[in-house]
């Protein structure tokens, strides 16, 4: 069975059995036209739905873009509802910072614990039961508790994202370490490698492709977690904007904020893919 989280990858990655290969120019055309026309298709369906539905339910991508443009640097509307002198941009920055801090700290812990527990049995006996429960459980239930314990501060959201990242990355790192063919470590040992060499020259590079794949999946979910934690209660962030705009039924603003998070998530994912491709160019 492949890893359950391949969901974050583009469905093209799998590639179904191609029955007939198109000619060269056809493939060129397909490559350069199908993806953009796919995006256009998405926007077209959205626009048609927006025309059919009343503006209190859905507005067109164009209206969303206009709202985004007008409120990105400064949004008087958000000011009125108590978020201070701010705009979508500044709120997005808060969200992004929390996601990245949580992700980096959480996954660093998770990766170290994951790799270590894959090779040290006593550690594994302690880690596995915890991960078994936390890995299948909605992390979200911790959000209200964190809010009660730590209050309406950035740390509350960072802890949620960080905890989630740690658990996910323990699972991915363990699996990655289990999938590194033992023959590489045996070969390294046979050539006199110390445990440190084995760790840094074999285990870490060998697990990197899978770990980066896991990081991608974790990052994709982290945005939702952060935004939700912000809606529940935060001093700032795009989730607060969504909450405020919901209270006044501002559909264009809600869609603008959700699109903004999605866009950021997509860009960050692309950056991570580029990084992963460079780091694992041998694979």
């Amino acid at each position, binding site marked *: 069975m492949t890893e359950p989280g391949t969901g974050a990858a583009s469905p093209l990655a799998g590639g179904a059995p191609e029955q007939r290969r198109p*000619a060269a120019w056809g493939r060129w055309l397909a490559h350069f036209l199908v993806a953009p026309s796919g995006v256009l298709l998405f926007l077209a369906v959205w626009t048609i739905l927006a025309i059919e539905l009343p503006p209190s339910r859905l507005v067109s991508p164009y209206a969303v873009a206009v709202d985004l443009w007008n409120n990105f640097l400064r949004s008087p509307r958000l000011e009125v509802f108590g978020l201070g002198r701010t705009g979508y941009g500044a709120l997005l920055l808060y969200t992004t910072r929390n996601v990245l801090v949580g992700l980096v700290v959480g996954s660093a812990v998770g990766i170290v614990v994951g790799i270590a527990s894959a090779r040290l049995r006593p550690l594994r006996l302690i880690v596995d039961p915890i991960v078994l429960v936390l890995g299948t459980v909605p992390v979200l239930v911790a959000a209200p508790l964190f809010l009660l314990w730590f209050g309406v501060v950035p740390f509350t959201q960072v802890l949620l994202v960080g905890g989630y990242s740690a658990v996910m990355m323990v699972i991915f790192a363990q699996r990655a370490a289990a999938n590194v063919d033992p023959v590489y470590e045996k070969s390294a040992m046979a050539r006199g490698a110390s445990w440190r060499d084995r760790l840094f020259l074999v285990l870490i590079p060998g697990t990197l492709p899978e770990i980066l794949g896991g990081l991608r999946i974790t990052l994709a979910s982290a945005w939702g977690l952060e935004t939700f934690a912000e809606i529940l209660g935060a001093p700032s962030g795009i989730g607060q904007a969504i909450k405020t705009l919901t209270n006044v039924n501002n559909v264009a603003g809600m869609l603008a904020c959700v699109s903004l998070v999605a866009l950021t998530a997509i860009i960050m994912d692309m950056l991570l893919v580029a990084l992963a491709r460079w780091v694992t160019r041998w694979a």
Partner: protein
Amino acid sequence: MLMVETQSAVSIDRLSVVFERDDGTRVQALRDVSLDIGEGEFVCVLGRSGHGKTTLLNVVAGLIPSYSGDVRVLGKPVKAPGVDRGVIFQKDAVFPWMRVEDNVAFGLRVSGMPKPERLRVAREHLDLVGLRNVPRAWPRELSGGMRARVAVAGVFASDPPILLADEPFGALDYVTRRQLQDVLLSLWERTGKTIMFVTHDVDEALRLATRVIVVSNGSVVEDQAVDLPMPRSDDALATPRGLELRHLLLHHIGLE
């Protein structure tokens, strides 16, 4: 041996196949191949990896629809796969989600044979390949050699006049491979099917074929009848004629 047929089972006239790589460069997999296989012949297509022998088989099987030239099976041009040609694949193609007998009966199921009848035929053929005891097993419970027997039984159960095999025993160990060669030979003698068998193994070709075709760089470089009596023991292959043929084939695939 029966060699009196007038109709050819497979006739290939000036066949060329060009593949295009993803980077746009072209590879000529087959160049101007002409070939005639009579009914009841056991033809081995011999060659090194990457020299076009699997492509040749896939064209005849109908799995490569875009080729230039004329390819006919039993007089009809080849455009797509058909029930007149059974294929044993190089990769393990036994469906893991079907029990052994359902795998063997698959072709009959597709052609609409009722269940009791097709299971009877399947069990008969499992018997013929020496798998009497495992009709209800899952393929994962069988060894590679047993799965190869399932593949052989499946293709004979469907009873196509022509059988195409693409290095079907390549992944098996020596003893198992020899056993499966015997199974295949006995089924061939029993049914008189036309067989086109792709291999890179000179000894396998000499043991099985009535005729060996050597493919090199996309062209047929040798077409040699193997006039050794069947069944061919190791001693029979060690006769002067056997050794002569062996040297000839080795020479054509680039050794000696």
